[in-house]
């Protein structure tokens, strides 16, 4: 059931380029601009030891893509609600939360695609994955799991509002949250209050978990912190989705 719905979500995403393009094109362009324009910042005192700014930025690009994937998944879900497709699913004799899980499976697949895309770009343009194949696989797994987690929040918003334009309107907020993390710049070199916000932003823990295997190798403590942050967002997403689903079924 979840597999069939997940397969449909994935197919739908790849057949709707306007959902796929922001996940790939925008972060790639930003990566190119930042790498080209701020490459010398790796010389700053306190910057983590990296081979290149590209190597540092790969994790941030993956996170950006992952967040946009979560937003796109929410938009797609809201479109399903607007066109009545979710009624077809709700009228079937399946556990209704399977409908949400099917949607999240699609979002996770997008996260996996994004991680593979950016790792490939990194390798093509000379970035080295210090953790080797295990490191690359760990990065991919964390990005995929993050997409699932963030997708739960996107699904909750879609279920609650039933409006694709509302979910789409959250896109600027996604970027703000991302810029207030260590996705694009080392937390140690930020100024206040951004530094303190980044310190406690769960996305920072996830970014560091994805970045560490790329720039230094696998670190158990950093990985565990990332997993804990992801788990927290998963729980939040599941709770919000479950409540939003109950609300939608109550008001029709």
């Amino acid at each position, binding site marked *: *059931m979840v597999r*069939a*719905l997940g397969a*449909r979500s994935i*197919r*739908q995403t790849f*057949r*709707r380029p306007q959902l796929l393009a922001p996940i790939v094109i925008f972060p790639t362009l930003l990566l190119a601009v930042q790498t080209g324009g701020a490459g010398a910042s790796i010389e700053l005192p306190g910057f983590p030891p990296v081979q290149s700014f590209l190597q540092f930025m790969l994790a941030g690009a993956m996170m950006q893509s992952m967040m946009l994937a979560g937003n796109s998944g929410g938009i797609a879900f809201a479109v*399903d609600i607007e*066109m*009545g*497709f*979710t*009624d*077809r*699913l*709700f*009228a*079937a*004799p*399946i556990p209704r939360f399977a409908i949400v899980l099917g949607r999240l499976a699609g979002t996770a697949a997008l996260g996996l695609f994004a991680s593979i895309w950016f790792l490939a770009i990194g390798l093509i343009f000379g970035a080295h994955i210090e953790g080797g194949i295990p490191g690359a696989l760990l990065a991919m797994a964390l990005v995929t799991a993050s997409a699932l987690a963030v997708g739960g929040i996107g699904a909750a918003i879609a279920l609650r509002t*039933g409006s694709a334009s509302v979910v789409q309107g959250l896109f600027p907020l996604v970027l703000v949250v991302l810029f207030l993390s260590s996705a694009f710049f080392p937390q140690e070199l930020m100024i206040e209050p951004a530094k303190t916000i980044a310190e406690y932003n769960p996305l920072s823990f996830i970014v560091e978990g994805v970045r560490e295997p790329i720039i230094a190798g696998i670190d158990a403590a950093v990985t565990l912190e990332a997993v804990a942050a992801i788990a927290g967002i998963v729980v939040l997403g599941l709770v919000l989705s479950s409540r939003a689903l109950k609300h*939608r*079924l*109550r*008001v*029709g």
Partner: protein
Amino acid sequence: MAAIEVAALERAFGEVLAVQGIDLEVAEGEIYGFLGPNGAGKTTTVRMLTTLLLPTGGRASVAGHDVVGEARQVRASIGVALQEAALDPLMTGRELIRLQATLQGLPPAAGRERADALLERVDLTGAADRRVGTYSGGMKRRLDLAAALVHEPSVLFLDEPTTGLDPVSRKTIWEEVRDLNDDGTTVFLTTQYLEEADQLADNVGIIDRGRIVAEGTPESLKDEIGDPHVELLISEGEVAEAERVCAEIGRLLPPKDGRRVLVEVENGAADIPRVVRALDEAGIAVESLELVRPTLDDVFVDKTGHHLEKEESGDGDGEPAPA
């Protein structure tokens, strides 16, 4: 056992009572027509019976299962084709039917076989591998109907299945509904089209502003109204005088527009010469005249004081659109 039983079913949206304590029963193998204007409560009722919306009062059972306490069993027994054909334009017709089969618990091979058979039944085999977004309105409706039948439900809910379709497509859907009913499927059909209810339904429930105002076979409902009426098209400026004259012959009915006078006549065609003579003596020009036998719209007028057709162009108040 009745296929559908409803007792004091109610649904409120805040202060608005969209469905106000309705009772109805649909026998197995029956086609039940639920007739009413936009905003009457038809879709809200269907959504409650198909477990898409929780009632706020009363109870209902479908195929022997309570819609609240045994919702999953209800969903396993019913097929649903809602007012807006709920189709993903990016899926092909075949993909949609196969997905529906999976959701209904059919094994993959059986689902594929069933999909092929249903696509053939609704004459969509040729378009099965095209995206639904390329289908015409009639094709979408047929696909929606096919998807609702994938698990051979005992009860089929059709919410305004022919709204927006051309006459040919409408007749195709009607034929399909009749065939399904001949196979034993109970059909609960909502419609705002009198002819549809008249043609298809074994029993009709007329709903207005959340209440059932009449129920029975189409013929018995029309017989209740009794007398036919004469419909006169009067020249402009003479309508008021024509109404005065006709009121002395029979009961005036609410007008459909500004130039028609409707007068009930006890003796049918035999009263026409009397009407024509009276208008002629008053110097009133009659542009056209027709003897009209009672229709379901007349039943609606009798019970509610307004026409069903006039309501369709009204403001559609009373039923908030489901979110």
